[in-house]
């Protein structure tokens, strides 16, 4: 474990128990997941039982105990996207990046998840790769969308 890296994240906070979620968000952003040893450090520094730290880490969807892929693919399954073919889009993306829903591909390039709603309902079905949105992604557009991200 890189002691200085985690110490640097914790130094942004005062060590208040209510800082738990922002601290975990920072770790998730920087490490791409929540490593076990780092969670133990968080528990000690915020003076919180490890059960609470793990409870929070496993309750919220943005946290992951396993490393996520280099490119995080989020397919929207909001109501409009559901009606406009979102589930088919999930299948198509999944088979093309070789990664089951909720997992990371073997080469570590992609992880695939669905989200409740991205708020771009007028352009359904919508998906995101990293911070970039893709509008009206019908199944035939999937190869073109994925191409720049595939090695």
């Amino acid at each position, binding site marked *: 474990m890189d002691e200085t890296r985690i110490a640097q994240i914790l130094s942004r906070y005062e060590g208040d128990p209510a800082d738990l979620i922002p601290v975990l968000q920072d770790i998730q952003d920087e490490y791409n997941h929540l490593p076990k040893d780092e969670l133990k450090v968080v528990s000690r520094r915020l003076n919180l039982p490890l059960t609470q730290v793990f409870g929070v880490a496993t309750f919220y969807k943005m946290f992951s105990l396993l490393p996520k892929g280099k490119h995080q693919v989020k397919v929207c399954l909001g109501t409009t996207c559901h009606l406009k073919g979102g589930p088919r889009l999930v299948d198509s993306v999944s088979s093309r990046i070789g990664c089951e829903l909720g997992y990371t591909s073997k080469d570590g390039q992609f992880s695939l998840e669905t989200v409740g709603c991205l708020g771009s*309902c007028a352009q359904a079905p919508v998906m995101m790769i990293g911070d970039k949105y893709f509008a009206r992604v019908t199944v035939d557009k999937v190869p073109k969308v994925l191409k720049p991200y595939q090695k």
Partner: protein
Amino acid sequence: MPRFESVDHLTEYRRQLKARLDPNQLQVLVCAGPGCLPLGSEELAQAFQEALAEKGLDGKVALKATGCHGLCAHGVRVLIRPREIAYERVTLADVPEIVEATLVNGQPVERLMQRDPTSGALCPCKADLPFYQAQQPLVLRKLDLIDPESLDDYLAVGGYRTLRKVLFKMTPDDVIDAVEQSGLRGRGGAGFLTGRKWRICREAEGDVRFIISNGDEGDPGAFMDRAVMEGDPHSVIEGMIVGGYAIGARQGYIYVRHEYPLAVKRLRLAIEQAREAGFLGANILRSGFNFDIKIAQGSGAFVCGEETALISSIEGHIGEPQPRPPYPAQAGLFGLPTIINNVETWANIPEIINMGPQWYAAMGTENSKGTKVFSLVGSVNHTGLVEVPMGTTLRQIIYDLGGGIPDGRPFKAVQTGGPSGGCIPAQFLDLPVDYDSLQQVGSIMGSGGMIVMDDTSCMVDVSRYFIGFLYDESCGKCTPCREGLKQLKHFYEEITQGRGEEAHLDLMEELCQAMAGASICGLGQSAVNPVLSTLKYFRHEYEAHIRDKKCPALVCRPLLTYTVDPETCTGCLACVRECPVAAISGKKKEAQEIDQELCIKCGLCFESCQFDAVRRE
């Protein structure tokens, strides 16, 4: 930006700001709202900047990437002021022509002008389109006027004007009186009277109080809060300062869901600007009032939109709701009196104070005052954000503003209120929309999502979708919600896979009654609305799934059959490449065949076929 030491300083600065503005200056306003952003607003604004620089116009023409222009369907939208010329479906390729024709020569580009989808008539100016004519924008008013990252822009349209009135001319009780008289009800869903909530909080014991803005907009199909937070963040902050003064809070929080990274960025910037200008922090405008705002980011849990779960989340716990009472107004964040209102509610506050409660209360219906923003999406021509007075009928919203259903398809239902709402059938199209009327027909206002469905939507599938969504999102704390949703999900799986029985429908109704009565929070209590409303109005669709093992709308996968029409199939093999289970076979340039044993009915062949040769029955 100076730090304003007094109200007069602010007034003088605003006067100078306005004096510098040339009303005839050409402005290019590129929509970068939730709908247009995925279509490439940022790249488009960049292209405009380069094209303007090339023509030497960069100092003369003001270019802004703004919040949502409302009409998402035909993005990217570009508005040219002062003539209000509205262009739609603008792409990078159109930029040189717009710059040359409109900005240099003053000529509109006809092929990019908006058209009325019903009559096909050209509508050169924004206000010519029926979509905009019937609206009464109050919360959305500034979205296509200002650069959301510029405090000067916000000040120029009257921003932070309420501070003069509130901090120096009104007592906290006056402010609460005004909000009470306006009749404003919470825009997050339940519709509790905002003024009453504030008064309860002000009268609660203790010296420390909190204000929270709920921006955890989790309802699928609703994006008005995202549009406001991204497009007009200072309105929310201004509303919260007023609220803080009214109830005596010194600290506010804005809770934003993590799926909205741009909203977080814009709010952070706006808070920073407001602090620098002296609208937040200690001794605001030397009034003696101290107030500041922090941002709390959600971590991806729908249940955190529920107020007590949201509070648990800010405290660093898992997002489990607490039984009420005590209500947050009495014992909320860290056990202290807390006002929690939705983003749209806060954005309404400055206008109510500026224009007066009577002005506000003159809009709307008897028990639902003011305007409401709806996100009109699904099978409707003009998808986007609309703001209308309460009491506008569904027909007006869907047909007059929304331009009706695409391809002349028949209307089947409109789903309001997200997963906690219901599906409203055609017989109620003339219903005036307000909190009470929607409840009477088995739905709710919710945050204002309005999803229009035509005959290609299966109501059993829609309800199954919501139950599946809520099953995933239930926090699992109370039994009626956790187990009830599990059983409902099971029934829906049976029915949509052709194993349903008619007795299931009665059991589902019984289960719904137990869940509505016994669940701790709104998630479980209202989870029954999609089920009960579809069982009531679309029972025949359930019966078709159960008796005939057919999905009339051709949606429920296990009940479908895919075949290839040998006459139309060209043998291009597009479907073969798409099929994940290699169920399609045949020679190139010859008709293909689908092996029904292998087919998993995913429909990828149907969607990938360019020749409509794949049949779905």
